[in-house]
């Protein structure tokens, strides 16, 4: 018997038995996730990327602000990746260490992706769950607001925002926050509509549980699978979005940087025969996105084994 696994409980001890530990749907999903090699691999890569962003600077021999004056002037010839002079990824067009710059860009890009996903998880889930559960006129009004915001060409609005107000990270977060939750709200509302007719929700209503408690105790936990999957797939799309804005030259501002800004810089220097300026940021970018997508896929298969 698995009784040893359980935690002691005095009331049950009286019956002479220790409680058996149950296997929740979450622990089942965890098992399925780790049985999936691609997803586990993706997760490992992701952890490495995060560690790189957090602690990569400690390995660097140059800071991201220092200019290597000895290389300036002949960057295409001498600025390439080399262990000898401490520039592992080479230097950028102004002679700064590209490795340090990529570490710095990873921080910003990951932050943008995670903040975007967090906003969408919190706002989108609440918005969708309330609209779907309450229904009726509330639902109509809330979802029309979503429709309205979706019909606005957000890229245009964001560019306007960034031009009119000062370009800043905060502005970028506001812009991303405004749009990221819309799709999530729709997905969550759809799921809520099917959940709220389940008998366990009716049982809770019949018991006399209050509406907010029902939403938080019965609706949201059963939505989380879908939400988590969508959020992990949203992180890369937020990163791509930010990169696109930065690629246009409107995103983060010098001396700060992001993957998109670095790729932009590398791409514009392609003619100067400095392929490392594009290659390294792009490689980190692509690897991270792949990892995110693998993890997202793995999570979907693990949390929703039925609709594979």
């Amino acid at each position, binding site marked *: 018997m698995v009784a040893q696994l359980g935690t002691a409980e005095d009331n*049950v001890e009286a019956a002479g038995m*220790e409680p058996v530990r*149950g*296997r929740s749907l979450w622990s089942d999903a965890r098992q399925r996730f780790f049985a999936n090699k691609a997803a586990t691999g993706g997760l490992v890569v992701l952890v490495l990327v995060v560690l790189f962003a957090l602690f990569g600077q400690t390995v660097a021999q140059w800071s991201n602000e220092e200019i290597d004056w000895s290389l300036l002037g002949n960057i295409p010839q001498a600025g390439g990746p080399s262990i000898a002079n401490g520039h592992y990824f080479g230097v950028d067009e102004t002679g700064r260490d590209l490795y340090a710059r990529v570490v710095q860009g990873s921080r910003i890009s990951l932050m943008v992706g995670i903040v975007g996903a967090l906003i969408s998880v919190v706002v989108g889930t609440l918005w969708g769950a309330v609209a779907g559960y309450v229904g009726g006129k509330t639902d109509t009004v809330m979802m029309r607001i979503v429709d309205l915001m979706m019909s606005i060409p957000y890229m245009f609005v964001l560019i306007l925002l960034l031009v009119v107000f000062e370009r800043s990270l905060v502005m970028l977060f506001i812009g991303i926050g405004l749009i990221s939750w819309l799709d999530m709200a729709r997905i969550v509302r759809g799921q809520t509509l099917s959940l709220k007719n389940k008998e*366990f929700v009716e049982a809770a*209503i*019949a*018991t*006399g549980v209050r509406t907010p408690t029902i939403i938080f105790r019965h609706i949201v936990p059963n939505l989380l699978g879908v939400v988590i999957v969508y959020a992990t797939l949203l992180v890369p799309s937020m990163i791509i979005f930010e990169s696109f804005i930065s690629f246009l030259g409107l995103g983060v501002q010098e001396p700060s940087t992001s993957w998109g800004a670095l790729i932009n810089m590398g791409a514009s220097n392609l003619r100067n025969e400095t392929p490392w300026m594009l290659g390294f940021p792009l490689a980190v970018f692509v690897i991270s996105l792949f990892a995110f997508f693998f993890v997202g896929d793995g999570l979907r298969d693990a949390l929703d084994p039925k609709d594979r």
Partner: protein
Amino acid sequence: MTLLQVRDLDVTFDIRPRGAWPWTPSDRLSAVADLSFDLEEGTTLGVVGESGSGKSTLARAIIGTVPATGGEILWDGTDLRKLSPRARRTHRREVQMIFQDPLAALNPRMNVGEIIAEPLRTHQPDVTSKQARAKASEMMERVGLLPNLINRYPHEFSGGQCQRIGIARALVLSPRLVICDEPVSALDVSVQAQVVNLLKRLQKEMGLSLIFIAHDLSVVKHISDRILVLYLGRQMEQGAARDVVRRPRHPYTQALISSVPIPDPKRERARKRPVLSGELPSPVNPPSGCVFRTRCPKAQPDCAVGRPPLLDVGDGHLVACPYQEVMETVA
């Protein structure tokens, strides 16, 4: 003592026709109409009828998850429909419900202890989680589940066990009335008997009143004191369980009872039984007069004219048919 009196209960739903303009009037679906019955404390009322006859709507109107559109639901003499939403919610601890699909009625993300303790946490917020767990494991024992399974999740149990969890949740607050909405229809026959006997035992121990809904008369007659026969939301016959099953008077009840097979091939072959043909008419557009006349073997032209009144044929046995006559059954 009479616990629950239902008087002329009406439940009507507005149905929006597909693609209707905002100003077109809704169709009216009358799910339950003019229903009256009394429920004595500690007794069981069986409600039978085929699918779509309004049994579940009746249950939901009493418990308050579906609004009644007319009539009175008197609980100890006070009309539940006139209570404030707040008072209504507090009142819900007195009435609990057991559902048809045992697994669907349990939140898959909560473990058994949390599920059973939920009514407790809702109505007695000052209960500590330790007390709640103790109470939950005590209830598990009462319904015949091993209390050491308290940390398990619903998907780890069989259908019969899930139904026991549902029963434990319904009884944790010691309610006075439990509404069982087809609690055994989704279970094996052998498990059905266990669950019905468990309900009977708990009823005796805790002094519960039950409203037991089923479409299977053989289950209902085993547990009920009185039986109410519904057809298209109207009551066809009502009476003491023995009377209704042994000497059904309404043609619909007679057809229902004769559809229960006798476990003896010789007698089963020898007996004459009225067989119903056709489908249940649409409740949006019910037949005029007696709603059963379109399928009734005894239908007369004047059945279409007016709603047949409930005739009292003695001992509180009510029949909604002027052409009623006793049919002796072997059941």
